[in-house]
């Protein structure tokens, strides 16, 4: 059966088209953009850079997708990245083994997520406020751990996570692809995904229907914290130091953007991790393209904003209706469309 696979493909088709268009634009402005060479035991090229540099946002987007599917939002992920990086650097420099460092750091990430989840699930605080607390306080916690300095380390194992390569592919790329597949399988081959979507549509009704919504919400925020911790380790390992001030700064917004560009609704109730990951790659392709283009830096954000606006407008329900209208315009070849009003139907589907 190719049914489910095909429908997923259909769902993320607009995102794939957007990605291809941006890659084509990049190729037009930077000759050699598509070149991939093999150097120093790893693949080397702008495309590889996009996959590699996009890793933190892609990792964050995995967790963020789940949270947003429950009609929540997690603003704290950037700060959790900073905390995770700080904890990892502090542990490895005080001579703990790599395994202890990584496990403890992931544990801290989960703990941060549980804190957010508890505020949302048990105290009923709105997610945007609940996670705002850690977003603001998190950087302070990270500063306390690093004692206000950029904590550098030289452990080859930890550095490998950020800049090593496995089978000539940069390790961060393997991490996010692997995590994306595992989480997708976990949520899509079981009923978990459905239950998460149910919470997003109507938490009260889900509770009454016997879903353990509080436990699920806790788990979803914990998963987001875990993803943020992985991203934090990657970011710190990449520069061989924990920069509490700047690690993951504003990345929570990029992660939310990746989820939205990936075709997910902030209203929750429906999610596609593949879509979000492609969204993350779209954002990184725009970033890399701007850097390669050689415009003065004053234009960076303007160009980025313009491209994102175009993508979002093309994806919006209103333009779907418009496309459908032109496609099925009366007076075209009679076999082009069924007689039912397709415009409304398409609009409804996109808005779901």
């Amino acid at each position, binding site marked *: 059966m190719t049914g489910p696979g095909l429908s997923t493909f259909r769902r993320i088709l607009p995102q794939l088209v957007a990605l291809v268009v941006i890659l084509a634009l990049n190729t037009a402005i930077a000759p050699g953009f598509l070149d991939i060479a093999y*150097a120093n035991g790893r693949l080397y090229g702008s495309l590889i850079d996009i996959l590699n540099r996009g890793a933190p946002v892609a990792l964050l987007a995995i967790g963020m997708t789940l949270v947003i599917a429950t009609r929540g939002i997690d603003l704290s992920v950037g700060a959790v990245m900073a905390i995770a990086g700080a904890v990892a650097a502090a542990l490895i420099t005080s001579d703990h083994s790599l395994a202890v460092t990584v496990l403890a750091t992931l544990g801290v990430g989960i703990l941060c997520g549980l804190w957010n989840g508890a505020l949302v699930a048990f105290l009923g605080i709105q997610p945007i406020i609940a996670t705002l607390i850690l977003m603001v306080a998190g950087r302070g916690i990270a500063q306390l751990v690093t004692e206000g300095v950029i904590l550098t380390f030289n452990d080859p194992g930890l550095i490998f996570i950020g800049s090593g390569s496995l089978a000539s592919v940069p390790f961060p790329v393997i991490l996010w692809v692997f995590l994306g597949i595992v989480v997708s399988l976990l949520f899509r081959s079981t009923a978990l995904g459905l239950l998460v979507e149910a919470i997003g549509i109507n938490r009260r009704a889900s509770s009454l229907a016997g879903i353990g919504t509080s436990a699920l919400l806790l788990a979803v925020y914990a998963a987001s914290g875990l993803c943020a911790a992985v991203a934090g380790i990657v970011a710190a390992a990449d520069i061989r130091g924990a920069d509490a001030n700047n690690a993951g700064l504003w990345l929570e917004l990029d992660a939310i953007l990746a989820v939205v560009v990936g075709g997910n609704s902030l209203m929750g109730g429906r999610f596609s991790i593949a879509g979000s990951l492609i969204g993350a790659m779209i954002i990184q392709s725009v970033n*890399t393209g701007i850097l390669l283009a050689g415009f003065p*830096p004053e234009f960076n954000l303007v160009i980025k904003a313009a491209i994102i606006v175009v993508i979002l407008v093309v994806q919006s329900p209103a333009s779907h209706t418009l496309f459908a209208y032109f496609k099925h315009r009366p007076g075209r070849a009679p076999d082009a469309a069924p007689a039912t009003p397709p415009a409304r139907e398409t609009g409804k589907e996109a808005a779901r």
Partner: protein
Amino acid sequence: MKILKTLAGAVALAGLMAGPALAADMTVGFSQIGSESGWRAAETTLTKEQAEKRGIDLKFADAQQKQENQIKAIRSFIAQGVDAILLAPVVATGWDQVLEEAKDAEIPVVLLDRQVDSSDDLYLTAVGSDLEHEGEVAGEWLVKEVGDKDCNIVELQGTTGSSPAIKRKAGFEKAISGHDNLKIVRSQTGDFTRTKGKEVMESFLKAENGGKNICALYAHNDDMAVGAIQAIKEAGLKPGSDILVVSIDAVPDIFLAMQNGEANATVELTPNMAGPAFDALDAYLKDGTKPEKFIQTESKLYTQSDDPKSIYEEKKNQGY
């Protein structure tokens, strides 16, 4: 003649009045911004060190990045009757009122590192570095190092629109203008961070034929240079020889890179702003010598031949 005598008398009288406040038992209040960066932590450490060395009783107030805390601190210093106040202002505006209060109490105020928008008779002097001059020193080093060879430079700018980014860029461009063999081929912002420095350098390397077209990197701060050095290494090139690296700030980690031959030069933004400030205060309180309104600190150039290892050890303990 008579005027001169009167003047001498007045100075002597002023000296007498300031007598009890001589360096030995001087009390100075220091309102610091907070701990926003490693550099500022080092400034705090060095200020305390300088005060101890001179036997000055330093009252330290951390404002946690808030102007109202600084104003409160200054008022409390005035109430305590300190001999002088050091102020590292968090913002440029809104100081007139409290500076006038200090002036009425005849307590000289010295600004550290940053400037204020108030009229300059409200403070004794300002100690700071000239950002444009820092860029110039970096540029001059590169001009000398490269000689007559053609050199394509890539530039990592600070946060777009920030005054260090604008002035360090202008100063560097001034230094290399007139040397047609030096050319800035790419210039992008790296937001003063290691992560962005590395990412932007990666794209520079891709865009300039795998880095073969690049002869030198100029970074507006050391942190971006440290990130870029890693990108250069990962591209299979040797930073420091294949691509020259010059940056500004002189934080400890760049000295490690210099020791390994991966960075070539850095221009120091000295965290010792208090030394010149105390010197000026000493002179003023002793015999009323009025210092210039701006005391420029030295923008010292460090290269690989300056024993980077020992400088690293020395700087490491300053709280960067």
